[in-house]
């Protein structure tokens, strides 16, 4: 013992002996703890994979249902009193002009957008307004503002009242209804 170094004495009280673990037992507990941790981590990762698959499947189902709804809306839109000209599969173009961007119908449609176009050789899209009607070919009836949309379409008769030789008649052309639905993306 060097000079100046204190001698620390640890007194052992033999009445209260600390428990003694065998080294082999400690190793076994450690093994088990690691094994348990591995099992938990494995199940957590497997569960996360499963949840991701389920979530994607859920989004797929939601998109399919939205598409089905859009198709049935497109097919039946000509029967809706707001558009119908009174015949089967016939849309009244005069009503379309009135229905364009109508504020009171904002929440009414179960789809993301409704557009009706005239089928013609003209490639130029001329949006219908009160000023240029009926010399136009594009009616933007409803737009929810959703950007990520997919369209479904169907053909209809597009009729409007016209006058020729003092006789009022229904002038009909071929029209196309385009109905948009929101396509949800995973992640």
């Amino acid at each position, binding site marked *: 013992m060097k000079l100046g170094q204190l001698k620390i004495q640890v007194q052992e009280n033999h009445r209260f002996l600390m428990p003694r673990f065998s080294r082999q037992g400690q190793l076994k507990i450690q093994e088990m703890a690691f094994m348990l941790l591995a099992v938990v981590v494995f199940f957590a990762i497997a569960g996360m994979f499963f949840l991701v698959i389920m979530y994607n499947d859920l989004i797929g189902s939601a998109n399919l249902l939205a598409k*089905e*709804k859009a198709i049935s809306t497109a097919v039946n839109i000509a029967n809706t*009193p707001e558009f*119908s000209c*009174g015949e089967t599969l016939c849309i009244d173009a005069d009503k379309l002009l*009135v*229905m364009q961007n109508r504020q009171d*119908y904002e929440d009414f449609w179960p789809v993301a957008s409704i557009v009706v176009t005239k089928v013609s050789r003209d490639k130029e899209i001329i949006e219908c307004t009160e000023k240029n009607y009926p010399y136009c070919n594009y009616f933007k009836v409803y737009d929810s503002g959703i950007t990520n949309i997919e369209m479904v379409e169907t053909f209809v008769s597009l009729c409007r009242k016209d006058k020729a030789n003092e006789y*009022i008649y229904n002038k009909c052309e071929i029209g196309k209804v385009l109905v948009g639905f929101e396509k949800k993306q995973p992640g």
Partner: protein
Amino acid sequence: MKTKKGFEMSFSTIFALIAGAAILFLALYFAARFIGSQQTRIDAETATKLAVLMDPLETSLGESKSNILNFVTETRIHNDLCLIDGNFGNQEIGIASSGFGDKWKRPTYGKKQYNKYIFSDEVEEGKEFYVFVKSFNLPFKVSDIFILTSKKYCFIKIPEGSVKDELESLNPGNFNFTDSGGCAKGSKKVCFSASSDCDITVYGEYGFKQGYVSKDGAKMEYIGPLLYGAIFSSPEVYNCNVKRLKMRTVRLASVYKDEIKILERASCNSQLDAPLTGLIALASGDSENLALLQDTAEEIENVNSAAECRLFES
């Protein structure tokens, strides 16, 4: 001296048992939760699909259609969320499938429907649901009304005429007609004149074109095809849908008023502006008098059908 026999287990065995039990418990818990959420998902999908399935039943003009909806398991259709807020009001349809034993799961509701008018009891239960659709005109087509039932109905002494013909042609399979009063057990008895032992009684005028239906102690006034809505739905659902139909009438009349201005450009003049304003005032008012609305609609119809340039076809 007594011998002390103990049951000795190694630490690893105890540890494995506890860990195994915990893992097994967690696996069962998550499996149960997963099955529950899958069932909720199926119910939500069914509720949405129900709206899609109803679309092809919509009519073009003055038609009626009927169909049967079949479910794989016993199902409850909840039609108890009908609101009259906003411009059109809305309705939500909930689906609940049977759980274990006699327990029913809580209903899962689909999206709010603004353009559908479904008349039914607040809860319809079964595997087979009968749907029929009638066009509701005032005098222009306002909407289709959907009647959804799962119960059997027995019509007693229904007078010859359009109502009987229509019910017979629409019969999706759950209607029975009798003059003697012998109805199948469990079926709802519908009488067309004051009589005891009836679940539903119809009092009508002008060949049942208007009148009222007495059901569950409530009196429901009807005009035209709303008769079927009153017979087959609960008073709450009926009153809510009638209010919603009146809201739609107001919006449609306003559309027609705007269309008149467009048609004038094609020298197609209409005298309907003032009568449509009257219809809007009546339909948006608090009056429950549907007969008055019917009279105004008839006036509009007369003016429209006599015009050279018709605003609408009816």
